[in-house]
């Protein structure tokens, strides 16, 4: 589904991603782990072309997206859920969802406002409220719902559990498993190993912009030295 091939990304002068490569198969949930500043967010942004890799290629569904604009990548079926809950605070919940709306796609589950309100009942109650009146957890739900309105094939979730209360984190995990059941491919970045292990099939560890591990959680746990070196568990 996603093929990242030897990308090098920069932020100003800082070299963030260093010859990074990995693949994600259709229907898979993959967790990208690593400490802050390891390059997880930049990887997400590089896939979306919000940051343009200087060298290397990114392809999605066998199609090279490396020279496309972010909106073209999104139109292909990649749904990006940023960290920091970037909702449109001046717009109502319904309007936020409208911004994300895209025509349905044959090969992906189709979402509508009503279906999403079933998945996120909190949002339904407050559908005509402005985004800024929502709590942090609700904002996180809205960011995901908004991206689902684009009927994506694949979700990129950047730190979905960061900064929200443990009870909401549990809900979040259930939501992601539900999305997996619907057939979505998910790449999420996480610092919370428990959370990642709960939802993902596979772990990719990134450190200093390079890939250090790429295998199942069972194999990861069999190698405590890796866990200790990069995840400090």
């Amino acid at each position, binding site marked *: 589904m996603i093929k990242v091939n030897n990308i090098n990304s920069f932020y100003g002068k800082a070299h963030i991603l260093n010859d990074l490569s990995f693949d994600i198969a259709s229907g898979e949930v993959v967790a990208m782990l690593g*400490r802050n500043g390891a390059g997880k967010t930049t990887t997400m942004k590089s896939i979306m072309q919000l940051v343009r890799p200087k060298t290397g290629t990114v392809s999605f569904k066998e199609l090279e997206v490396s020279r496309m604009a972010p909106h073209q990548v999104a139109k292909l079926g990649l749904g990006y859920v940023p960290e920091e809950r970037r909702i449109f605070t001046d717009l109502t919940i319904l309007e936020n969802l409208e911004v994300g709306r895209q025509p349905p796609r044959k090969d992906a589950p189709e979402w509508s406002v009503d279906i999403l309100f079933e998945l996120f009942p909190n949002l339904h109650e407050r559908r005509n409220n402005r985004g800024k009146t929502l709590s942090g957890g609700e904002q996180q739900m809205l960011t995901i719902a908004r991206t689902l309105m684009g009927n994506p094939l694949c979700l990129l979730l950047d730190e979905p559990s960061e900064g929200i209360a443990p*009870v909401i984190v549990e809900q979040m995990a259930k939501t992601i498993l539900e999305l997996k059941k619907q057939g979505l491919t998910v790449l999420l970045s996480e610092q919370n190993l428990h959370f990642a*292990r709960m939802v993902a099939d596979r772990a990719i560890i990134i450190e200093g912009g390079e890939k250090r591990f790429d295998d199942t959680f069972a194999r990861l746990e069999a190698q405590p030295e890796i866990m200790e070196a990069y995840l400090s*568990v």
Partner: protein
Amino acid sequence: MSDVLEVKNLSKSFGGIQAVKDVSFSVKKGELLAMIGPNGAGKSTCFNMLMGQLKPTKGEVYFEGQNLIGRPTREIWRMGIGRTFQITGTYTSMTVVENVQMALISHHRRTMSILPYAHKMYKPKAMELLELVGMQDQAERHCAILAYGDLKRLELAIALCHDPSLLLMDEPTAGMAPTERIKLMQLTADIVKNKNISVLFTEHDMDVVFAHSHRIMVLNRGELMANGSADEIRNDPRVQEVYLGGGSLFEEAEIQA
């Protein structure tokens, strides 16, 4: 132990919604006090009222016997309260050491001075503070290119520059990796112990909270719901319900693994 900070019936409402309701607590000398609670529980509102960025609807706050309410942020700082932010706020156009020097210049009330070169002022003291947080090797680096964890340490150095007797830290470890979190909190704990400073902090990472606080307060819907030791809080059923969760998430994960 005497009280450094005493908060009485602190309340704040925004257009009819009560964000903080009659919160009262005190911080003792040398104590690390954690404030936890779900998002929107009123933690940030509390912090902003303590630092003078928000005016409370009601309530009193005494710092070393003096009332804080109604004073601007910068005056509260001068009284001896240091602060670090959830999202770091450093001077990106300056070098690391200049960031600390700037705070020292302000502490010595020299900000309106137009004679000396600022980058030569209070340098030894600034280097001393950087050494305290382990940043002396990066003193001359441009602040804009620092790693996130280093920015947090720099902020700590800035917050310590006027020898505060109380530190307010808003989610000090947000956005950091687990090892870095532990390191930063260990560093903070060592410093406050050596200097006999009290700390009030908010935090989402329960490992950090349980490992480093002497006492924990739980805020829910603007009200103080519990106040006690780590064990008391961990085993409080109400706290588990609104905040900590049943732990089912982790059990399930264990089964899968």
